[in-house]
């Protein structure tokens, strides 16, 4: 009986180990034009091309920005019927239910570009292991970011478990964000092409993933 229990426990550990490998990252922007898609793509490509993980990229949007990119290329389809490009599988035009299914069932690293409509993406973000919020502390956009975090993040999540990104690495902007939320944001700049990453980009992507 004891031996049986021991074996049972070993099995659970194995299951936990597998579960650990499964990671989902949900990225949401405090507004449009902040580079949410750009950073999501960089993250997905880094995970596959550098960390050699199996990666599924999901674009949660009623209007896909990426679909045209694949339509004029002869790209093959991946195991989940998504477009395969540079080793990453792209699932576009998926409904909430389908995305939740992927998060729960597909054994891969999942990066979800949730766009900037928090209300419609909330159910998906809720299911992500890692939530990343992107905004700007530039004078003309800081209000929007602070409002977004207060209205959507503070109310719904433990803010210490959220990763905050700001565009640029201005210390004053990092400090300003800190003064509001007591969280240090990651300053992101200069990832030129998410499909052609450079080694200089790795540190910042690692920081986002950490």
């Amino acid at each position, binding site marked *: 009986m004891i031996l049986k229990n021991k074996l049972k426990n070993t099995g659970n550990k194995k299951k936990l180990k597998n579960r650990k490998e499964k990671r989902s990252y949900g990225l949401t922007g405090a507004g449009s034009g902040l580079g949410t898609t750009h950073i999501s793509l960089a993250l997905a*490509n880094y995970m596959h091309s550098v960390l050699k993980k199996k990666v599924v990229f999901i674009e949660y949007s009623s209007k896909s920005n990426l679909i045209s990119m694949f339509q004029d290329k002869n790209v093959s389809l991946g195991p989940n019927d998504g477009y395969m490009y540079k080793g990453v599988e792209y699932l576009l035009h998926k409904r909430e239910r389908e995305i939740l299914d992927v998060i729960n069932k597909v054994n891969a690293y999942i990066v979800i570009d949730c766009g900037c409509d928090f209300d419609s993406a909330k159910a998906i973000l809720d299911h992500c292991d890692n939530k990343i919020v992107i905004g700007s502390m530039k004078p003309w956009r800081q209000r929007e970011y602070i409002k977004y975090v207060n209205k959507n993040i503070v109310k719904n999540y433990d803010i210490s478990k959220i990763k905050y990104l700001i565009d640029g690495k201005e210390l004053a902007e990092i400090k300003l964000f800190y003064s509001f939320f007591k969280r240090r944001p990651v300053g992101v700049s200069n990832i030129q092409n998410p499909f052609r990453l450079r080694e200089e980009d790795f540190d910042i992507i690692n920081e986002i993933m950490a």
Partner: protein
Amino acid sequence: MIPTGIDDEYEVIRILQQTAATAVLLVNYRKIGDLRILKAIHKGHSGSNSILSEAHLLKGFKSPYIPTIYSVGETTEYYFLVEEYVEGLSLREYLLDNKLDENKFYDISIELCKVLEMLHTAGSEAVLYRDLKPEHVMLQSENIKLIDFGISVEKSKAKEAKALGTKSWASPEQLENGILDERSDIYSLGKILEYMQSNSSLKDDYRLKRLIAKAADVDKSKRFKSVCELKEELLKLRGKELLSEKFDEKHLNVNIAIIGADKSVGTTHIAMSLCSYVNKRIDKSYYKDMAGDDTAIRLKENLKNIKIKKGVLYHESFNALMDYGPAVESYDSPFGIYILDYGYTNQMPDADLVIMVVGDKPWQSKALPEWIIDKRVIILGNHIDRINAIQMAKRYRKKVFIYPYEKSVFKISSRAEKIFCELLKNRDGIDFKK
């Protein structure tokens, strides 16, 4: 003239060249933010087919020496072609500020030969480039690229081709609308070599002058018959015979393959230690995982004091090549001795030296592949019993080296160093530091 109707897809960054009916533009491909070259020509222009013929000619080639064609399209008024934007300096620009040393001269010359050789031999029929000049040779960090195939033709269609080309670079028969073949390109290559020589430290090398004079002879019957012939002569002049296609590659790397006779016999451990040893005692050395085990990635995650630069991970005296996927900028392979970790396999790899790592544990396989008798293969028993080593040596009629038990991968004991020294002694291409 900037063609209308392309704005949706392309943002014009810079006009590189333009006439009333043609334009060469540097554009941003909006969908993925990639810089590309867009060549447009008005449909009414007499040479409007040149864009289509350029695309047609290049579509079959997949080579690092020529730009990739992405698409060909048309608007109501224009044909246009979109191709890879080739970064770097042209040979002309480079020579304005630089003088070539001997190595650089031969590197570029031999690379140029290879490009032409590829064009002349790769397709179903030879493609004559017809526009070789310093402006069209782009120098990248380790490669060269030929750009602008606007007047290139297939050999069989050269008769109908117009007498186009650039004076002082194009062959006399090309400018006079004579019969063209590969030797026409050889003439232009000879002229480029002449231009390079005058801007190099080899200015007074008479043997090189003689070779160039032969390539750029006005009488085409006196020229080299093929680019390959010219390339071999250049290699001889450089002091390196054309031994094999492998040595013909610009990197004269030495490859040492490490193979396990079974799983878990310590192949990776030995490969890494060997890499550290070679780096310390012989020459620059790089570990490369050939088994697809993502070893370099795991080293990156687990080792402290690492530095990654241009696709190489540096840790103490150990270097490993990162195996990035397609979404990372590619880096040129560095020169040196490559330690290739194949893990467990039965296939004989293509390498200058193969070290077969064997174990003698009861559960480990004792059967070695037939190719073990090959001269390039050495048997290395990892911490095996001396009697087992003697038996194995008798069975395979080969000396069996014994690698000692080593705790650390990167701090190698003097006993292990001695074994590595013996393994590599008197091997071609491996010169010990004094």
